[in-house]
């Protein structure tokens, strides 16, 4: 009956030869003013029972659209399947009425989304949501459905599952929420689990836990997984087989080891080359030994008050930054790494005057008060994570780049315009694009615009707050290259803030590792990455997915429990860590 030609590779791991899920010649198009435009063209693949298929690609490659098409969740009416078919076992899913599709969704195909907070209903308890999802597909008595929900929470290794059932999504951390999403997805033991960037929004150590969990669950239940990701490290660790997509088309399909060992398509090669790898940084040679300090931070503290009670008094205080001291040398790239909530971005905000602080910050010999004098701002510029959000969408990019010059009263309109043209060329954009609006540029180009704007005042220090995190790997590599080139040309220093250990290892001269508002380890790149001393640093480095399928991960003890909160009662002060020099300025908290 269903004797469609089947790629041999699809049958490698399959116990029987019939694919669980078959996609043939799938074409998804969007209706635009100029007619139908394909988002995914002629895509065919099969998925065997118990297999993990990774669909990798950069933004706009159509990988997410593919997963939505399989789920029958394409946004109506503009986007729809215009060709090909999707078959689950013997059932053809394309053209199935919505009522029948609903029965399949969640029951036989389940999906995990990128952002666990937005995919959970904030006003219902975890237990209610899980139970509801089970009852929607199986007519079980309430008590039995609840037992199933509890079992699912146990399966995803939630601590205190019975208590979690009564909690609301906002009471859980990001990793916990993603576990709930996975629990919801596996509660009905689906045949296929589609995970769309399941760990992109999570910290590395949490990502590690979630990936391990997915792998264990798959082993126990034999679920087939379609893993959609842009992260080649995740691909290498999880996948049996990989499909690489670009602009809606499959450019390569291969077993994971073959793909990484001998990529055939030029695009795959480029993609793999762009991936930042740990250990590459050492090849660049050590940074200069000692430099005169440009920025000096001494015992920097930033706290936020939380009010509570009837009278709205301050009851708790979040110690976002709890006593941080470091120097940034002239022409040095200093990186702060740590997971979300460790206070690294708050330091950036304190330096540029967006967060009130106590302690001492000195830039270029000039101490900064809680209110930053206008002139001092010229020395420090900040580049944000999301270039789209940090550019006023109603201004032309030319005006945006001139903006700092206008604010500081530098030059005339003509000279400013000339300078903007000049800066545009420096960051690799065409000066002809000055009169366009931010939304007309791609993500990487927008970040270049932000860089041009930051450079306009000829600052001494540029703070890059997760500035390449939102970019695709190939774009990320080019922006990092640009930052490196500009550093030499303009004599800049960088404070580079990132959660991505591999990126930091590639760009930083010196590194500070932050945990709960304090620095736990500080040293040169070689010291921190070559000889990590603090257990937290080690955990961070080990958690990074390695883009090499032959890499064998040394089993480490899995971190247990939650990251403690920096929120403390009034009067309680976090215990200051003492940094001990273990040689050549390599400081480690004891």
């Amino acid at each position, binding site marked *: 009956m269903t004797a469609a030609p089947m790629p041999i590779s699809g049958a490698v791991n399959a116990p029987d030869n019939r694919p669980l899920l078959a996609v043939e010649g799938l074409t998804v198009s969007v209706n635009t003013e*100029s007619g139908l435009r394909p988002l995914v063209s002629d895509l065919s693949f099969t998925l065997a029972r118990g297999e993990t298929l990774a669909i990798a690609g950069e933004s706009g490659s159509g990988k997410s659209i593919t997963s939505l098409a399989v789920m029958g969740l394409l946004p109506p009416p503009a986007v729809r399947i215009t060709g090909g078919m999707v078959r689950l076992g013997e059932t053809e899913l394309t053209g199935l009425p919505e009522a029948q599709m609903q029965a399949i969704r969640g029951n036989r195909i389940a999906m995990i989304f990128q952002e666990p907070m937005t995919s959970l209903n904030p006003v219902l308890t975890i237990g209610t949501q899980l139970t509801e999802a089970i009852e929607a597909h199986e007519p079980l008595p309430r008590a039995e459905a609840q037992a199933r929900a509890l079992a699912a929470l146990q399966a995803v290794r939630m601590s205190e599952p019975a208590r979690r059932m009564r909690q609301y999504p906002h009471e859980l951390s990001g990793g916990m929420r993603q576990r709930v999403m996975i629990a919801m997805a596996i509660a009905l033991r689906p045949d296929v689990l589609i995970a769309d960037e399941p760990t992109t929004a999570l910290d590395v150590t949490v990502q590690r836990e979630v990936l391990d969990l997915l792998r264990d669950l798959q082993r126990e239940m034999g679920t087939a997984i379609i893993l959609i990701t842009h992260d080649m490290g995740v691909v290498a660790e999880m996948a049996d087989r990989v499909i690489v997509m670009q602009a809606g088309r499959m450019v390569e399909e291969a077993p994971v080891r073959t793909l990484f060992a001998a990529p055939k398509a030029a695009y795959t090669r480029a993609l793999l080359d762009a991936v930042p790898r740990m250990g590459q940084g050492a090849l660049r040679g050590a940074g200069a030994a000692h430099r005169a300090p440009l920025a000096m931070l001494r015992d920097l503290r930033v706290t936020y008050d939380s009010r509570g009670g009837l009278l709205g008094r301050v009851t708790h205080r979040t110690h976002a930054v709890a006593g941080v001291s470091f120097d940034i040398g002239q022409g040095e790239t200093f990186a702060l790494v740590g997971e979300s909530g460790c206070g690294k971005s708050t330091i950036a905000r304190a330096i540029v005057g967006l967060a009130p602080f106590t302690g001492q910050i000195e830039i270029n010999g000039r101490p900064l008060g809680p209110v930053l004098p206008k002139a001092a701002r010229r020395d420090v*510029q900040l580049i*944000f994570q999301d270039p789209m959000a940090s550019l006023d969408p109603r201004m032309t990019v030319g005006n945006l780049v001139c903006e700092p010059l206008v604010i500081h009263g530098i030059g005339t309109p003509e000279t400013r315009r000339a300078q903007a043209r000049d800066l545009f060329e420096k960051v690799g954009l065409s000066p002809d694009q000055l009169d366009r*609006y931010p939304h007309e540029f791609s993500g990487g180009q927008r970040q270049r615009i932000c860089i041009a704007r930051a450079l306009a005042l000829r600052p001494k220090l540029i703070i890059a707050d997760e500035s390449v995190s939102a970019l695709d790997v190939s774009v990320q590599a080019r922006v990092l290259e640009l930052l490196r080139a500009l550093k030499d040309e303009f004599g800049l220093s960088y404070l580079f803030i990132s959660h991505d250990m591999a990126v930091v290892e590639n760009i930083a001269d010196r590194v500070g590792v932050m945990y709960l508002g304090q620095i736990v380890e500080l040293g040169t790149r070689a010291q921190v990455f070559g000889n990590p001393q603090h257990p937290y640093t080690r955990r961070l480095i080990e958690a990074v997915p390695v883009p090499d399928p032959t890499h064998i991960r040394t089993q480490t003890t899995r971190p247990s429990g939650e990251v403690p909160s920096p929120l403390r009662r009034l009067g309680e002060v976090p215990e200051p860590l003492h940094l001990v020099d273990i040689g050549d300025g390599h400081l480690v908290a004891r």
Partner: protein
Amino acid sequence: MTDASLPKIAAPRGALARLMRRKLALFGIALIVLTVGAAIAAPWLTSYAPQEQMFDGLTIEGAPLPPGDAFVLGTDLLGRDLFSRILYGARTSLIIGVVANGLALVIGTLVGVTAGYFRGWIGTVLMRFTDLMMAFPALLLAICLAAIFQPSLWIVAMVIALVNWVQTARVLYTETTSLAEREFIAAERTLGAGHGRILFLHILPHLVPTIIVWGTLGISTTVLLEATLSFLGVGVQPPTPSWGNIIFENQTYFQSAPWLVFFPGAAILVLALAFNLVGDALRDVLDPTQRGRD
């Protein structure tokens, strides 16, 4: 994904063209132009003055004439030409709509944006006052104010403005607070931009669509409020015609002379409808998220 799939059209360019593509909006604009034109050209379009009481404007029994040959829309109780009164009344109603509403918009924008941007105690004081104004029955307040001052066209416009700014302030307050937390505003602050620059160059332009929409929606509200005030006798004083006081003067004769209420009522309805059509269309055209759905 969705970002790439939408047609790329810049904000200011093409907004007018897209407005012109909407048939309902064009219809609304045509109605407004017609009303304004008729109000301006009233002396040339009418054969009688609005205040002129005519002998042949009444039947022998002294009843008003229904619409007919001599008087297109009939006459009122005093034998005045209804058509002429409605055309001249359009002047009053439009002045109220533009001046009162414009003033309300300015007050509302000032209060809402200031409170939303600065927050703190300034914001609290301004917004609590706005809430107070909102809680107070607007009509009652207008009647009180109109009773204190000598009613005239301009006083009525002031009164309406003082009552009508609260909704604008509320809406702009919420919008400004969320705008002020956007990252590009933080980016401006790190560049050293002052409050004035951020407010006028980076926040106000984003509020323009909302202001326009509230402006157009407000026009119909104010025309109706003036009609209500006139109807209650605290609005524009006779013999100056306004659509509201024409209805007021003739309400008791609704049974015997329905045209006296029907025509001015219809005029209000049509003008309010016209402004609402244009306002709706403007909102859609200026909202970037609506783009590509025309």
